[in-house]
């Protein structure tokens, strides 16, 4: 494939307000972004609104992306998380079901969804899932509450009735364990593009 289809090339075309480039970028990231948004908000309609907000921001403010800060996919996921957690807080639909199921981190992937385009991502995804599964339950719980449910460390401390220091140490140990297992992938990064 020519360079015309890389993330950077598409982004440049989006900056030039090329609708076709936005469409291509959307098609490339729709599924992983939607799945990530759905994982956080657990509501199909709200997840769609999150995806819409992300691509609207991309369309209007693509110049905010700084390639020096990391890969485009990471940037999109980061913004998606911000939008999703803000939306979750705004809608105030939190239920215990949405935030206490640490075992959600262990759910198996849907094998039917393993299409060729996302196969690489799924292979890496399984490595990440495996790394998460290796954490103990307490560590998985704080990771779930902070990263996927958007709670701050103080909120986790209050919610789980554990000292703030314990929350910090669990996160520290969890991150250390993940880093040990995933460092090589993290360095390489992941691209959905050609």
């Amino acid at each position, binding site marked *: 494939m020519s360079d015309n289809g890389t993330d950077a090339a598409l982004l440049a075309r989006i900056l030039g307000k090329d609708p076709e480039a936005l469409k291509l970028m959307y098609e490339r990231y729709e599924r992983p972004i939607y799945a990530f948004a759905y994982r956080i908000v657990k509501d199909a309609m709200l997840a*769609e609104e999150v995806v819409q907000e992300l691509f609207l921001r991309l369309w209007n*403010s693509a110049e905010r992306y700084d390639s020096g800060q990391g890969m485009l996919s990471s940037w999109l996921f980061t913004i998606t998380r911000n939008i999703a957690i803000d939306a979750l*807080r705004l809608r105030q639909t939190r239920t215990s079901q949405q935030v206490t199921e640490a075992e959600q981190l262990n759910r198996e992937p849907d094998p039917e969804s393993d299409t060729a385009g996302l196969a690489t991502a799924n292979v890496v995804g399984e490595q990440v899932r495996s790394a998460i599964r290796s954490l103990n339950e307490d560590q998985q719980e704080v990771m779930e509450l902070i990263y996927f449910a958007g709670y701050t*460390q103080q909120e986790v401390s209050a919610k789980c009735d554990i000292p703030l220091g314990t929350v910090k140490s669990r996160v520290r140990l969890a991150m250390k364990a993940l880093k040990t297992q995933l460092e090589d992938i993290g360095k390489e990064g*992941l691209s959905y593009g050609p």
Partner: protein
Amino acid sequence: MVHNAPECDNAEMYALGGLSEEESKAFERHLAGCEACALQVAELKAIVDLLPLSVEPVQTPAGMQDRILGHILGDSAVSNTSNQDADAASDVTAKLTPADSAADAFRESTRASDLPPMNEPGPRLQADVGQTRKSQSEPELGREPQPRQPLPAEWPKAKPRRWSVWVSAALAAAVIVLGIYVFSLRDQLSDLRGQLTATTEPPQGLRPNEAVNLSAAAKDIVANGLATIVIDSKGTHLLVQAEKLPQLKGNEAFQVWLMKDGSGVVNAGTFVSRDGKGGLYLTLDRNLSGYNQIAITQEPDAFGQLPRGTAVLSAEISL
């Protein structure tokens, strides 16, 4: 700055996104002067960036691409394909199932009430969000309010004094228009309240057109349920409750169907169970005369338009 300062302990929490807004800002100030922390955060962020990949794939809603791209490009004055996309989106809307219509109606009602919609960057998603949220120096995109109408290239310069008179007059007119608009909104609100009162009045002597026990569709299923159907001027109201439902896995959901001699199938919504119990309420604004069966299936996800999973409960009805 010396590494091992108290702030250095926050590197992992910062990278994961667990600091409050104030803590995040404080840590970012620390980062600016602590090279060791900056390096550590960069490494940790590379790991955190992998976490979205742990998410299992889910099916995207039907027509989402057309709706989203139609909306974005349709709002853009630059796009020359916006009309095509908007048309595509409206085509999709025309084909919506009852469940999707409900979703669409929700969006319409949101617009109608002039709440700041999610697609307008600014107020709805950011302003009211808990003040404790972090605001890391991670890439922020389009955070400032972006009006739909393009702003003028430059603000009017306040030079000739006579212009100020016109500006004042224009402002006064704008205030009046706004006043009328607000009044109109109040009027609409009053109407809506009236309608709400009407719809929330307790029904008197409500008589269901149909109330049937749902029985297990297979031998090894112990679930049972009740379907109550009321038809009035507003449509067909369906209330389904079930218990002892099979355990759902992953993204699975239960889906309710109305069927007509095994041919016509209407999606009557999806629900997930809690402790084996669940149900839904739905109003269908279409003629369902002749439909003679209701069924609940266990589906791989909540977005199917046709039954794909296994039947759990069913019953004969007569609409």
